């Protein structure tokens, strides 16, 4: 059984660099998006149970490409060290800052070129965008069923049985393969590859591709104008004086002003 995992090399939003009041995307480091680690872990576990191969597919979304390539390879090596067999990295100027419809088309094109695949696994969402679109979009592009928010996964013959975590219920569903699932953090605890395992993973192939290699030409539909970081400096307003009622009033007023409460 061959599994494809989608891995985003996300902006490490915990370490956003700022310059002149704007997020400096180009000098913010990348990281393997947290939940995508769960996706890789699950893919490797599926393979450990039923055999086959695990392919990693990743689209570089942040520039500058030349400098990012090495960073991206280092991160993919970590993913390979977790047990994946090979990786495909698409790096192309046209993809920097592109929207997810483009990402999904590129991913689908790679998956089709792989020929044989039974299961595609993605994280429920990425740490930077948190839009959770790419999984369902790829499924739509490939015309295969999608099961999102999976917290438990079983392969039964040519079907996948999954437990989905919904807002107020847990749903057990079943669908034929090939299919795409997106997983939640709860599905497993991803293994952390050791430094030696990461080093040993240099042997595993990382195929670097451009849109031309895939025979694609894609038009951008969106353009990011600016990104302004949110202020995290604490105000430090301490209400010491007054009766309990007065204090409560002052606090509530402050919260309304912050836009945290909307009176009905």
């Amino acid at each position, binding site marked *: 059984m061959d599994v494809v995992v989608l891995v985003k090399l996300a902006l*490490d939003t*915990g*370490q956003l*660099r700022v310059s002149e009041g704007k997020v400096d995307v180009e000098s913010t*480091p990348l*990281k393997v998006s947290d939940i995508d680690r769960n996706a890789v872990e699950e893919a490797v576990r599926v393979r450990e149970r039923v055999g086959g191969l695990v392919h990693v597919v990743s689209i570089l979304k942040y520039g500058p490409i030349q400098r990012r390539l090495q960073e991206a390879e280092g991160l993919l090596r*970590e993913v390979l060290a977790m047990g994946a067999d090979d990786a495909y990295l698409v790096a192309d100027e046209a993809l920097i800052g592109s929207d997810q419809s483009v990402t999904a088309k590129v991913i689908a094109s790679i998956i089709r070129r792989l020929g044989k695949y039974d299961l595609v696994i993605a994280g429920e969402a990425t740490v930077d965008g948190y839009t959770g679109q790419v999984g369902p979009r790829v499924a739509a592009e490939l015309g295969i069923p999608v099961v999102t928010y999976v917290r438990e996964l079983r392969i039964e013959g040519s079907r996948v049985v999954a437990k989905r975590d919904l807002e107020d219920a847990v749903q057990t569903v079943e669908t034929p393969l090939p299919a795409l699932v997106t997983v939640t953090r709860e599905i497993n*605890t*991803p*293994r*952390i*590859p*050791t*430094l*030696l*395992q990461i*080093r*040993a993973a*240099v*042997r595993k192939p990382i195929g670097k591709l451009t849109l031309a290699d895939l025979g694609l030409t894609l038009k951008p539909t969106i353009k990011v104008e600016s990104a302004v970081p949110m202020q995290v400096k604490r105000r430090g307003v301490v209400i010491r004086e007054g009766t309990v009622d007065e204090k409560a009033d002052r606090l509530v007023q402050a919260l309304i002003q912050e836009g945290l409460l909307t009176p009905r």
Partner: protein
Amino acid sequence: MINQGLLLAYILYAANVGLIVLIITRLVKEALGSGAPISVNRFTRFITHEVKSIRKSVVGAMHLAILGAVSLSILYTLIYPWVYRSQLAHYIMFGVASPLIVGLIGAFAWRVQVLARSLRVHGKLNVSGEFRGRSIRLQGVLMGVIALTATTLATSILPGLLYLNVKLTVAAVDYMLVAIFYVRPEVNLYADFDRALHDIRMPFNIKDVIEGRVDASQVSMGVSRLSELDRYETLSLDACVEIGACEESCPATVAGRPLSPRVLVRKLAMLKGTTGPGSNPLDVVSDDELWACTTCGACTYNCPVGVRHVDIIIDLRRRLVELGRLDQKKSNLLLNLSQYGNTMGTPNYGRHEWLRELGVKTVEENPNFQYLLWVGCMGSFDSRAREIVKALIEVLREAGLLDEIAVLGDEETCCGDPARRLGEEGRFQEIALRNIELFRKYGVRRIITICPHGYNTFKNDYAKVDPWMRGVEVYHHVEFLRGLVEKGVVKVSMGNIVFTIHDPCYLARYNGVVEPQRVLISRIGKLREVRYHGAQTFCCGAGGANYWYDVPEERRISHIRLGQLMETGAQAIVTLCPFCNAMLNDAARVKGVEGKVKVIDIAEVIRAHLRS
């Protein structure tokens, strides 16, 4: 006609001599096999070590009593043909032996107590019936040896053939048991006595991998089979005779965590005995048993026969790390190290901005610095630990030395200790190499750190990764402060506060730094020592990366330690480690005794007593 009794005596004598020869041959054979150099010099140092162990602990004294008693018993046996007729000789022999007999009685009593505790521990850890049986049998045999040896010595007072024959019979049984059970422990000690606590197995040097001499996929980090342990570790397994000193001093056992160093070592020894060196240690040891260890080193330090529990535990943790058997908290620690370069999971840039406001310069701004101040993860990010660094800075400013120091700024990352103790040796060595490269780049010759973990790592571990580090002097801030006070660069005033000192394991036990803190406190106030102090300190519970994860336990180690420290009635507990400080402060808060006792770092004590 030859006296039948005498004939029997000679036969027994011959048997005894045979057994003694057996003991000696086994000693020599095992010693040769241990790989330890056999020389007069080493032997002398070994004996000195043995004698000094009296001062270390009661167990040490009792161990020495047994060793002395067996040796004396053997000596007596050998000289019997020449002395057995002399009444006086018997009195002298008894006189000489009597202190040792007292020692043996003490040792016997100790063993009874160990037996009682081990029964309790077995119940708690829920060990197998077979283990219990074997453990009790071994302890029984060793109590037997003590009793038999004592008998051989005690009977030396009784002249006459009949008693002689009784004595020689007892001795024959005794020596037989000694040959079987006592040779390995003694040889192990001979091989290990001078191995430092921090000198754990280094399974590979990452430089060989980076420079292409060794392929990464060919290197294994942890131990998946007993045979992969180093020889000294395997000898350790065979050496354990359940003396129980480790278990008595182990904070994890005391706290009711699922670990007893004695049980762990014996389980592995039994595994080796039953299914051979190819067995997987993780078949008999649970994950939490390994994570329960704080690597405080009390077990190894106290073991009279030199068993290396911590080394084995780290080797097995390395295996768990290799297998990815880490829960979320431990995973987060490793992820934070690789993503952020620090253990706190906070962006690393700007970590020393707050120091700039205090007038501390970076190595780039102050290239002529004398000392690199290694601030560490706690000192850089933790608001309480920053207070400690601040106190040190203020003392240095007072001494006019602020320009002598510099910090690394954004280039400072983790020292690597948490990675190493967790079992990620590769990550540790990578961090070490990166730091060494930085030290070289900025021409670092001396390092001051407020954290015993960084201290130990720079001083001992780094030198094994790259010998260049031997040329770098490493100081804990207490050593530095002592120098300043003794030279009169910094003047302190005497007050009337009663202090007690919590010695950090990695400073006092691992590196023998116990004096400077006492010198300083004695000039400032009154010192009341806690029962476990100096090299015999009791862990705060944070070591071995335990600060970042939790293990099932009945009581917190930090609460136990705080209790011990508070028994002294001191008004202030002096810490020398930001982790200890955090642990004990937290314990005081949760126990609601914050008002009764202060937990403060030595730097803060000095600052509060500066005399200008």
